[in-house]
């Protein structure tokens, strides 16, 4: 005979405001099989949980129904409570009378009646619950980090220093990401390269890190603790083992002649040109060139081959082909970063039409000692040192007409930095900043902006720029100063647009491969915005850096370390416990149609051969890989022979609930 305990939570006022909890408890007590029913103000609190534990012991309960919030919120909490009292945790069920009742109804009578009904359904279900034991799966204690910007570098180093192996996959020819392109960094103005390159070198030399650059993840199979990833190493056409990084090849490449080269240098965002065989920047890791086949004469018309002739190490190899490797890993950190909106998308400010309207990253290159102008601020059109520079914040961000309603978060800070660094380089120059609001929340951030205004003389104008056009070799910037209520017109030599931070193109495809949700802008979604900011809803996949949302370096590094600590936590076990609420196949009745395989979104269905004693094949049936199954139940509802059952949601349990509706 079942002895069910029912515990009704008020959730403070959240439930009690609309549902008469005492009455629900009274009603529950009358249900057949219910041995004990009680209501309490906060069931999830310590005394609340103790109330449940005591009741289980005192009344010898065989099942528990907690009527409170969504199981998403507290199912784990209450299952642990029940376990502490010696009951199998899967004998505890939750009736959701908050999200699905009190929060969405106003009529107290009707809501109370509905709460009673929800409780009744769960009581009927729990009578059919059986004790389930957690599943144990082995954990491969090796991590994959995708993306070698500062986020990926930090995560890889932390995991490697924690004693676990890491595979770092970077799409470009070098690690470093956007941080390697920056000049100096707010709020302390330390040189980006100086703080970055030691870390890059550490990655390369770390015994626990395998670095694949110029490589991409092509396929991900498996599940938490047991992923199989396929990585394509694109052909560099330069043997990494032989190359000494002497640079002969790039200096002799005929496509790289200073005057005639037409190949835009991506690292300088098109502000300079590069050869067809190149190392993206002097501090690149690895310091091994790649051949850009699209622009290489050898690959285009079979002529040339100069680089191969001049290479003293005989490292250039035109016959190299892509290599595909498979690696087993237990966890994945995604750190693929961001892109900036091209200024070309801002036609109204002449972006893409006027050479002296550039974006923030391009200005970083103009400020950088390793940049195209050697760190002198010279404008792209004619190399003149600009005496007046206008910075326009929120060029794209917070602008619905450009499809970016969100704030890019870092632009207020880097624009202040730009105004400051410009003044450091061009003492007599004048910087103007058009802004909507100054968002400088962060340690020493507002002080930094004040310094740009008060000590470095940047003129901040609160308002939007309405029109921008070229005239007589200058850019006429018309806008409003909404604080003084005056229209302003500035003749500038250079205009820098703080264009929006956007997700990388292709981030959606990557997310789909990893089964990680993403938002409408392509940023990857964390599992919970507050409480699980580095996990994703795909178990074993973690997020770090600007691939999740616009972020500055301190925040990126903090998140990367957090992701690393989650990975190390997972790797602290040799075996991992998983919830037993997965599907099981009745092999005797399975007809082997494999409809279940077609509907399974997780690839959890395997084929199993049934043989007789002599080894003759009798039939092939489906088998659920318990490590992969996420318990969605799609297979169970599809199975035409009724051979699949989802543990914790068996036919008996579900039918018992249905039968209890409306009685």
């Amino acid at each position, binding site marked *: 005979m079942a002895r069910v305990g029912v515990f009704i939570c008020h959730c403070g006022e959240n439930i009690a405001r609309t549902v008469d909890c005492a009455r629900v408890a009274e009603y529950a007590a009358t249900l057949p099989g219910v041995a004990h029913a009680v209501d309490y103000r906060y069931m999830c609190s310590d005394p609340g949980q103790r109330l449940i534990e005591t009741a289980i012991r005192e009344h010898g309960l065989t099942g528990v129904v907690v009527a409170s919030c969504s199981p998403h919120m507290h199912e784990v909490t209450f299952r642990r409570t029940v376990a502490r009292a010696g009951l199998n945790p899967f004998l505890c069920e939750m009736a959701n009378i908050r999200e699905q009742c009190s929060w969405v109804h106003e009529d107290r009578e009707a809501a109370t009646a509905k709460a009673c009904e929800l409780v009744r359904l769960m009581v009927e279900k729990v009578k059919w619950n059986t004790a389930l034991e957690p599943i144990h799966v082995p954990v491969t204690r090796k991590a994959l980090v995708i993306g070698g910007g500062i986020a990926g570098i930090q995560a890889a180093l932390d995991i490697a220093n924690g004693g676990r192996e890491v595979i770092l996959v970077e799409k470009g020819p070098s690690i470093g990401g956007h941080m390697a392109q920056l000049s100096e960094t707010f709020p302390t103005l330390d040189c980006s390269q100086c703080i970055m390159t030691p870390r890059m070198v550490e990655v390369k030399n770390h015994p626990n890190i395998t670095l694949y650059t110029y490589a991409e993840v092509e396929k991900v199979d498996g599940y938490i603790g047991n992923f199989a990833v396929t990585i394509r190493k694109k052909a560099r056409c330069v043997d990494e083992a032989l190359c000494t990084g002497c640079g002969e090849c790039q200096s002799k490449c005929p496509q790289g002649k200073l005057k005639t080269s037409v190949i835009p240098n991506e690292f300088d965002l098109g502000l300079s040109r590069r050869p067809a065989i190149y190392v993206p920047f002097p501090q690149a890791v690895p310091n091994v060139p790649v051949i850009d086949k699209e622009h290489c004469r050898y690959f285009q018309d079979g002529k040339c081959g100069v680089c191969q002739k001049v290479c003293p190490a005989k490292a250039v190899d035109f016959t190299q082909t892509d290599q595909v490797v498979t690696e087993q890993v237990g966890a994945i950190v995604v750190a693929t970063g961001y892109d900036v909106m091209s200024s070309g998308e801002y*036609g109204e400010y002449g972006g893409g039409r006027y050479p002296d309207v550039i974006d923030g990253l391009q200005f970083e290159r103009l400020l950088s000692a390793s940049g195209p102008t050697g760190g002198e601020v010279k404008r792209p059109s004619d190399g003149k040192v600009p005496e007046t520079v206008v910075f326009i914040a929120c060029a794209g961000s917070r602008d619905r007409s450009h499809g970016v309603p969100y704030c890019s978060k870092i632009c207020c800070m880097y624009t202040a930095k730009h105004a400051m660094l410009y003044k450091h380089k061009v003492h007599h120059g004048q910087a103007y900043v058009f802004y909507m609001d100054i968002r400088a929340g962060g340690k020493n951030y507002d002080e930094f902006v004040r310094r740009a205004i008060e000590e470095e003389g940047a003129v901040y104008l609160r308002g939007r720029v309405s029109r921008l056009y070229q005239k007589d070799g200058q850019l006429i910037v018309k806008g409003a100063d909404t604080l003084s209520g005056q229209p302003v017109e500035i003749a500038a030599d250079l205009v820098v647009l703080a264009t929006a931070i956007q997700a990388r193109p292709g981030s959606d495809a990557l997310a789909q491969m990893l089964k990680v949700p993403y938002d409408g802008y392509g940023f990857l979604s964390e599992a919970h915005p507050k409480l699980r900011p580095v996990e994703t809803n795909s178990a074993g996949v973690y997020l770090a850096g600007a691939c999740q949302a616009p972020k500055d370096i301190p925040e990126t590094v903090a998140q990367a370390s957090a992701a690393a600590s989650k990975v190390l936590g997972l790797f602290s076990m040799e075996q991992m416990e998983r919830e037993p609420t997965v599907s099981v196949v009745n092999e005797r009745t399975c007809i082997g149609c494999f409809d279940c395989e077609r509907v399974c979104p997780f690839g959890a269905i395997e084929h199993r051969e049934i043989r007789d004693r002599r080894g003759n094949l009798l039939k092939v049936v489906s088998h659920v890989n318990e490590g992969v199954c996420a318990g969605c139940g799609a297979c169970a509802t599809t199975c035409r022979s009724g051979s699949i059952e989802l543990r914790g949601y068996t036919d008996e349990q579900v039918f018992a609930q249905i039968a209890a509706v409306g009685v």
Partner: protein
Amino acid sequence: MSYAYFPGCSQQGMAAEFDRSARSVCDRLGIALSEIPDWVCCGATPAHATSHLLSIALPALTLAKVKDADAVATVCAACYSRLRIASHELREDAELRARVKEAAGVECAGEVPVRHLLDILCNDLGVAAIRERVKRPLAGLKVACYYGCLLMRPPKVVAFDDPENPRVMDEVLAAAGAECVEWPYKTECCGASLSLARPDVVCKLANDILREARDAGAHVIAVACPLCHTNLDLRQADVARQYGVRYEMPVLFFTQLLGLALGVPEKGLGLNRLIVSPKPVLEKLAAA
């Protein structure tokens, strides 16, 4: 393609040359325009400044009469804007359709697209076809194409060219052999709606536009709106009084320039109706 032509009231009076030149040009280019029978005023600013319903109902009266045409063709930027917006709203909003039916007694679902002649020239006919039919190319003539504030806005409803840097008129007149200058005031407002209330403001705006066109090296300004035309052509004397600059800048409808290139006789273009005569510029060009 068959076009139901909406001439518009301004084109019956002040800007009669716009209507006349448009018809001549279309005739030359083989674009068949059949005038919408019994069309009424689009309501322009007076209507939409008075009542939203009125601003939709008036165009609906005309649009409801359009039968068997692929599109409604207009030349005036304001007519275009009003008809296009009305047709858009009627298409999207069933409740508005019902209210219009009650107020104006007509049923109009905004099914026939409303098109501007520039859109038709560029996108239906194509500039290559224009180039083929040019008899007297406008070689050496530097034109500042002025679109005004209305023609390309609001972009969600109009959307036949880049609202910030439109090119259609430039392309049409380039096909006619003219050299279209790059200048920043293509879509600036001329202040037309302040014509009577604040002539000082309008004068300043006209001066800005004329100055920028001159500085960009233009010989003439081409327009697609009778109000822009009046303001820029008629106000040059006021501008001279207020700012001391005499521009003598001819302001022509794009159809007049195109007509010249296609060999339409001057009578068919109404060049004599312009205040600042284009004659000196055109003669100099012919002599060169």
